C-alpha cells in the first residue's frame, strides 16, 4: 500500500467517526507505526490549510477529528441553530477550573476552596459531561473523587490537560496579596493610614459641598 493510500484511508475513517480517533487505533487499522500516522495527519492538516478548506483536522482529547474552520462559525451557526452550547455560569466555570487543576478532588475539597456548597454546580457539570467520578477517596468516608472528562477537553479544544495554562500563571501577584492583607489588618499601621485618609478627606470636603 502506498503512502497515498494511507492518507486516503485516514481521511475516510475520520469522516465516519463521531469521536476523536486515537492515532494508536489508526496505526493498528493501517498496520503502520503510530509515528507515521502522526506524520500523515500533520501533512493533511497543512494541506487543508493551504487549500483554504472550510474544515480543519485537529488533534483534540487524544485523537484526530474533523471540525469546521473557526472563521466559518457564522454560517455554521446559521445552519445548526440549536448547536449553540449554553454558557456556563461564573460559579460553574470556577468550579470547573478547580476540578481541572486539582483533580482528583472531592466535593468537600471543592467546597472548601469555593466557600460555598457546590452540590448543584457539580451536578450541572456532571450532567453536561464535563466532569465525572474518577474514584473514591481511600480515607474515611470514601468520598467520591471528581475529574474532568474527554468531553471537557473537546469543549476546550485541547488535546490533554497539559495544554491548560499552568496554574502558577494565575497565582495573585505580590500587590494583590498585599492589598488583601492590608484589607484584613487591624493593626496600628492601618490606623495611621486611616487617620491620614480621614485628613485627606476632610480637606476637599469643602469644595465638594460647594459644588453640590
Amino acid at each position: 500500500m502506498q503512502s497515498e493510500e494511507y492518507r486516503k484511508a485516514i481521511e475516510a475513517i475520520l469522516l465516519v467517526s463521531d469521536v476523536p480517533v486515537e492515532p494508536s487505533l489508526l496505526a493498528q487499522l493501517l498496520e503502520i507505526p503510530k509515528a507515521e500516522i502522526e506524520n500523515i495527519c500533520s501533512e493533511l492538516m497543512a494541506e487543508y490549510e493551504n487549500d483554504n478548506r472550510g474544515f480543519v483536522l485537529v488533534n483534540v482529547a487524544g485523537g484526530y477529528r474533523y471540525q469546521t474552520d473557526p472563521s466559518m462559525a457564522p454560517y455554521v451557526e446559521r445552519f445548526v441553530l440549536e448547536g449553540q452550547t449554553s454558557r456556563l455560569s461564573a460559579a460553574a466555570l470556577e468550579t470547573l477550573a478547580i476540578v481541572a487543576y486539582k483533580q482528583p478532588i472531592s466535593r468537600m475539597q471543592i467546597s472548601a476552596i469555593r466557600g460555598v456548597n457546590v452540590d448543584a454546580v457539580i451536578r450541572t457539570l456532571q450532567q453536561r459531561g464535563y466532569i465525572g467520578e474518577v474514584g473514591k477517596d481511600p480515607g474515611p468516608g470514601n468520598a467520591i473523587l471528581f475529574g474532568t472528562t474527554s468531553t471537557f477537553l473537546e469543549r476546550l479544544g485541547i488535546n490533554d490537560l497539559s495544554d491548560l495554562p499552568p496554574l502558577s500563571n494565575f497565582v495573585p501577584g505580590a500587590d494583590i496579596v498585599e492589598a488583601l492583607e492590608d484589607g484584613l489588618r487591624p493593626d496600628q499601621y492601618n490606623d495611621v493610614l486611616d487617620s491620614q485618609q480621614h485628613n485627606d478627606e476632610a480637606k476637599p470636603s469643602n469644595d465638594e459641598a460647594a459644588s453640590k
Partner: protein
Amino acid sequence: MSYEVDTPVFAGPFDLLLHLILQDEVDLYQVSLGGIIEAYLAEIQRMEGVNLAVATEFLLIAATLIELKSRRLLPDTSDLDLEEELALWEERDLLLARLLECKTFKDASQALKALSNDASLSFPRLVGMEEQFLGLMPDLLEGVTPKSINQAYLRATAPKPQLDLFHVTPVKLTVAETVESLIEELPVLGKTTLKHLTKSSVDRVEVVIYFLAVLELYKQGVVDLTQIKTFGDLTISWLGFDEDTDFANINTYEG
C-alpha cells in the same frame, strides 16, 4: 438547580469579600476593615432568606471580621488572652489564604472560558457511520441476558450516598507557625528560593502560607527578596536581625 448567589453579583462569601477588598485596587492603602465589614453586613442583609449554607458561611466570615475589628478598637490589648489572640490571627491567616486561592481559580476560570469560547467556533463532525456499514457492526448485546438488563437498571437507580462536610477546611499550617520555623531555618540556609521551601508542600494553600510568611519577614527587614521575572521563582536571602528587632511586631508572631 438550587439557589446560587450568582446574580446579581457574587457567588459566595469569598467572592464578595474579594470584591470588597480589591474593588479599589488603585487605592490599595485606603481599604479599611471597618468599611469592608459594613459592606459585608449590608450584603448579608440583602441576602435575607436565601441558601442556608451560604448564609452560614457568610456569618462565619463576618464574625471573624468583626472580631478583628473589635480587637482594633480595644485601647490596650495586653490583657487579651494570648491563646485567644493567636486563634484570631490564625483565623485571619486562613481567611487570607482562602481568599488568595479563590482569586487564583477565579482567574484560571477566565482562561478556561477563553479557551472554550475559541473552541466553540469550530464544530465537530458528529455524523457517524454511513448506513452501508451499519450492518457490519458487531452485536453489542452478545452475552447480555434479561437478567443483566434488570441488574443494570438496579445499578443505575441505586442510591448513591454522599458525605457533605463542605464547611471543614483541610488547612493545617498557619502563617504564625511558618514564620517561627523560617526564623530557625533561614539563617542556616542563607539563600534559598520559595520553590525550594515549599517543595514538600502537597497543598497549594501551604505554598500561599509560606509566601505570606516570607512577606512578613521581608517587612521586618530580616530577609531580602528578588524575583527576576514575573511569575519566576522568588529568591530569599537571610539578612539577619539585631538585638532590638522587634518580633512582637511581626503581625502573626507573638512572644
